[in-house]
């Protein structure tokens, strides 16, 4: 099971965190501090796994961002490494050549997308097409609601003129 997901920039800034196991706020910041130190200091040609507190952290660097997932020691590491890539591919498809800035200003979108890929610390959907479709559907729901709201307010505004 995936215990948490972290996105950390090369400068150590946190871009996304998602916790599937219960950690208190204090523990969360401790984990982030500790792991970003370990991961950011690793050289380029090393393996994508680190052993940490009896767990394993699978990480991969994409340009300036490190995607990290913490799993149990006996989980399949490569499988999780490709979940990371799957996530990145979907982000890429959604934003169109995603960059760190996209994830900063649209961090909430990253959370929506992650929720369609992983829940309960397990992979829920491995089809990029399906995930993209569901996210688009959500976006349009929000859009429609917005339009409705504005049209009603228009109407009210009209009526009270």
């Amino acid at each position, binding site marked *: 099971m995936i215990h948490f997901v972290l996105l950390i920039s090369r400068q150590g800034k946190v871009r996304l965190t998602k916790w599937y196991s219960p950690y208190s706020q*204090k*523990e969360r910041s401790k984990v982030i501090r500790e792991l970003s130190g370990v991961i950011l200091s690793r050289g380029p040609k090393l393996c994508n796994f680190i052993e940490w507190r*009896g767990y394993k952290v699978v990480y991969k660097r994409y340009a*300036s961002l490190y995607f990290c997932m913490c799993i149990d020691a006996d989980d399949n590491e490569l499988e999780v490494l*490709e979940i990371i*890539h799957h996530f990145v591919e979907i982000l890429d498809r959604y934003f169109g050549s995603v960059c760190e800035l996209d994830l900063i200003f649209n961090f909430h979108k990253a959370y929506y997308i992650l929720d369609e890929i992983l829940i309960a610390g397990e992979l829920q959907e491995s089809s990029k097409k399906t995930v993209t479709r569901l996210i688009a559907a959500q976006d349009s729901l929000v859009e429609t609601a917005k339009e409705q709201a504005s049209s009603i307010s228009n109407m009210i505004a009209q009526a009270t003129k």
Partner: protein
Amino acid sequence: MALSGMRGLSVFISDVRNCPNKEQERLRVDKELGHIRTRFMNERGLTPYEKKKYVWKMLYIYMLGYDVDFGHNEAVSLISAPKYPEKQVGYIVTACLLNENHDFLRMVINAVRNDIIGRNETFQCLALTMVANIGGRDFSESLSMDVQKLLISSSCRPLVRKKAALCLLRLYRKNPDVVNIDGWSDRMAQLLDERDLGVLTSVMSMLVALVSNNVDAYWNCLPKCVKILERLARNHDIPQEYTYYGIPSPWLQVKTMRALQYFPTIEDPNTRRSLFEVLQRILMGTDVVKNVNKNNASHAVLFEALALVMHLDAEKEMMSQCVALLGKFIAVREPNIRYLGLENMTRMLLVTDVQDIIKRHQAQIIISLKDPDISIRRRALDLLYGMCDVTNAKDIVEELLQYLSAADFAMREELALKAAILAEKFAPDLSWYVDVILQLIDKAGDFVSDDIWYRVVQFVSNNEDLQPYAAEKARDYIDKPAVHETMVKVSAYILGEYSHLLARRPGFSPKEIFSILHEKLPTVKTDTIAILLTTYAKILMHTQPPDPELQDHIWAIFNKYESFIDVEIQQRAAEYFALSKRGARSMDVFDEMPKFPERQFALLNKAEDKEIDTAEQSAIKLRTQQQTSNSLVVTDQRPANGSHPPSQLSLVRMPSQNMDPSLGDQETTQANGILTKVDPQPAQSGDVLGDLLGTLAIEGPPGASMQPEQNSGLEATASPIGDLALAPLDGQPNSVQPIGNIAERFNALCLKDSGVLYEDPHIQIGIKAEWRAHHGRFVLFLGNKNTSPLVSVRALILPPSHLRMELSLVPETIPPRAQVQCPLEVVNLRPSRDLAVLDFSYKFGIMVNVKLRLPAVLNKFLRPISMTAEEFFPQWRTLAEPPLRLQEVVRGVKPLSIPEMAHLLNGIHLGVNLDIDQNKNNLVASSTFFSESTRAMLCLIRVETDPSDRTQLRLTVSSGDPTLTFELKEFIKEHLIIFPTAPSAPSHAHAPPVVQPQPPVVGAGSTDPGALLAGLL
């Protein structure tokens, strides 16, 4: 791509990003938090849009690492909003900010449930997602039925059902009772026929969790799993969108094979054949390709297939293929594959007799010990440790020692410990052992615990041949310029005892030895000074006739320390001074130390500890099997099995890092965590903008890498291993000693339903129980820990008269490393505290026989119920007279606070109802007792404590059956008077076995063989 769509949010993010330093950022954030707080205080003027925006800002601030201690209520309240946009934000932010233990979550259970049972599909998805991510036990109690319905409903679309599956998995993890085992296994089998791959993937995750807990209920799923695997890996029968780099859903393949690994065997020959065909195909057909992702995905599948083959452990043909593959992997350049190759080779050591083939790769593994990547080095170390035996110990240990000086700090402790264990375990001769340990102290003194040098001293004292050699070596090391204090201790001790044996050699005259040692005195701590004083006194006495110069010098030192602040040193100095003044008459006082008794040292009792990594575990298992006699005899062969008394070394301490225990329920310690000090804000590198705008190039080459210094500091904190408290087995003729304390294990099992009942070097007996009304079902897990079979296995149940017990057939032989499961049915006929006994014997060299109490105790037939005052008092009044109500003042009670007492009662299934008794020094509990004669019988308990004297209390027990009342009262008393100590805490390992009270012989019990035996135990 449009920005967030919320201007205020974007502006805020930009502001924060434009802050030139951390201080400015904090100011900006504080300002924003203040603003949000004010807006939230006056909620009426807040539009849904604004609320949404502020909640997102809070999440952003939280993500930056600031404390956000308000506004949870607003986030949570959005969940109940009627419109999708608000609801969505409410759910997602709540799931990010809170964890399952948060009180706010309870407030929304109803709102969440309404969304789940409502008709709106999108709301269902949001609710299921949140519960799957942060749902706790409360959720599992109120929602599991609804979630189950969604999962099996034929009218729900896949997007809801896949979420329901994982949501149910979460609820199951929080509370395994949510899945009704009987009906559920058929449902699961049906669900495995699912055609939608998203749903199937989620269902498979669920199955993995279910079978890992209780494989027996899900045998019907096994053929389906094999079918799915065939469909994916052989037929490639899968929609295009579910292939990943040309591989049919690697994730589903991995999960399916994971589920299959929980089934002990596959009996049906057809299913088995099909599975092996697929596995064969995966093992043979996976090639290394250029594309990294394809490679990773195919190897994820391949490694899972390897694990499955190892587990099924069947055709030797495939096993050798596996070893060959792994041999290839550990030599490749790709670091991930090399890492996994080493890891899996270590696992392979555990399961099959392939050690000899693995040994052929030793040279390659040693290369990996020097890999630039610490993850790989750790794997290599574990593997070397696991594969070490008498044939290669010398090579491996010397390799480890050589590497020790070069190794990074983070690994030294582990390396030193492993080298010491291996040296002791497999020493081909004793002088080599002494060499290794002295080298170890020399190179990594900080990581060598006292136990290790005590052990050397012990060996040297007990082996006369070794003494001159050890003295010579000790002198060599102590003569070096900067020696570790541990080296001073061990050298001083050995030289004091034995340097006179070499007195005629150049450099070994008493004077020279003294002056070498005395150089060290100014820099050492007091405990070392004490040893040095003794050494001086011994040197002096061995110098006959006395050397006046040396004598004056040493006397001057004694004189000086006679007024030393530390009393131990002071006394030594005074006594040695007085004794040595008496000259040769004191000779006998300063004689060599007597030989050490062949002490029974405790072995590391941590084999079951999950904290230890697999290699450690395997090594411990190996060691427990291969225990030889205490002295390190020169031996070329593996010790004969079991016939030796299992005495052994306690080497040492387990490596354990200085971990923060605060990580909640996580198991923290681990032999190979590293502790790194981190600068949270590493120096900014030049190319920030480039980073931000650069696409997350998939497969992109890493940019100019900026590497903050890693301050890996490692604090060596080692926790001592307790000597194991051996529970004496009076009158048992066996010389096999149990591992762990039998009484403690029993006590622990009285309060929980699964665990280890008994363990010794050859066998482990685990137990798992389920209780339903007056019926119970144990499963005994008999696990052979050896690489050869256990024979003449016999298990007899001696039931007390109130239990009807039926044990299924126990096989006479347990194959090597196999585990057999024997169900044991229990029916409770009437209330009694008598105990059932398992009379278990087996032969491994000698006959071993143990009699073990079975935890079919009274409380297992109790079910706590909660009652209100209105329900309680009428019942209480009707059961007011003896013998239905009994009251007793109990003294000598273990002093407990009220919450502790409540915890204790709840632990024995007496449900404490906090609101009934107005007096807060009293506790009222209620429970239902089940037996064949009483059927379901209500029991009411009241405990009145005396706040001024916690060692006494008044206990009142009522029930509709006089025997039950009596037995229950006595039972509670036993628990109040001696509460079984928690078995896990390491400090308790020293504690003497908990004394069980002799069960008082009452009525029918006196003729009961089980009861009599239980009394004997």
